[in-house]
């Protein structure tokens, strides 16, 4: 049982090798949430968790495949159950990789086509402002958000891609000429069929402070916080 909070509690599970967990918490606090880091060894999310953000980094050293080992951490069982109950879950970069490996999001992330690590601002287009993660954006709006990854080339076969497109699950695409990794169909972020789980390669938590450039990331995280407030208002 949770009550509506002024500042909804957003759990940020982190793993050995995660490195954006503190930035995620800081950015979430800036957009009106209470962020709380949760070590991967925990088997339950904090009481009153209204949303989960899986942060970026290199969980388990990216051994075998990015995210392939982190998905078996005890906390992921809790995250999977939370998502199954309709809880709002966002995966950023390595968090996105973990969610695809866990089967919570479609597709897979592979080595960048260039084989080079990319670290720069990219422009992404909001394909669906109706999602819980883009509600503060407008359809077709372009956001500037940095990427920093070596394995961000999202891939899905033709059939899966057509299905996702038909269901409106492709929420974010790299703008024309901006695709930094060779992702199929310029996909930068996808959601699950229900719409409560979303992953993206760009880092919204690194684009919330005007001192550091774009603040467009706050639109994504702010949308998440709005959704978290709504879900926290519903007794679980």
């Amino acid at each position, binding site marked *: 049982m949770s009550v509506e909070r002024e500042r909804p509690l957003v759990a940020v599970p982190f793993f050995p090798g995660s490195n954006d967990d503190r930035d995620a918490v800081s950015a979430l606090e800036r957009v009106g949430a209470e962020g709380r880091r949760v070590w991967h060894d925990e088997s339950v999310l904090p009481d009153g968790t209204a949303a989960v953000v899986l942060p970026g980094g290199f969980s388990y050293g990216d051994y*075998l*495949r990015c995210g*392939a080992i982190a998905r*078996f951490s005890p906390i992921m069982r809790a995250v999977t159950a939370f998502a199954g109950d309709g809880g709002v879950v966002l995966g950023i970069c390595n968090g996105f990789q973990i969610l695809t490996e866990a089967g919570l999001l479609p*597709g897979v992330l592979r080595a960048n*086509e*260039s*084989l080079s690590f990319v670290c720069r601002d990219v422009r992404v287009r909001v394909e669906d402002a109706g999602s819980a993660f883009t509600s503060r954006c407008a359809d077709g709006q372009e956001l500037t958000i940095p990427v920093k990854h070596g394995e961000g080339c999202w*891939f*899905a076969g033709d059939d899966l891609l057509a299905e996702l497109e038909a269901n409106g699950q492709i929420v974010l695409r790299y703008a024309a000429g901006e695709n930094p990794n060779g992702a199929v169909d310029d996909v930068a972020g996808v959601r699950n069929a229900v719409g409560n789980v979303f992953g993206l390669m760009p880092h919204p938590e690194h684009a919330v402070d005007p001192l550091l450039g774009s603040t467009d990331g706050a639109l994504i995280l702010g949308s998440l916080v709005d959704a978290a407030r709504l879900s926290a208002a519903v007794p679980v």
Partner: protein
Amino acid sequence: MKATVLVRPKPGILDPQGQAVQSSLRHLGFAVAEARVGKLVELEVEIDDATEARAELERMCEQLLANPLIESYEIELRDGV
């Protein structure tokens, strides 16, 4: 029982690592039309029965060692059948 699991990028899946290897080999003067790079996992499983070991290895591949969207796997068992 010892086993080797070979994990390969599925046919048709772009393999930039393989392309880089192929290009390097060509620079060295080798006539290589294509290279694809996979992974090799050597395991020692604590099961003596080959059929049982193979079934267990299949499960390991499905759950962790390969991602079926992009990779195929092949299991080789030694010390036995």
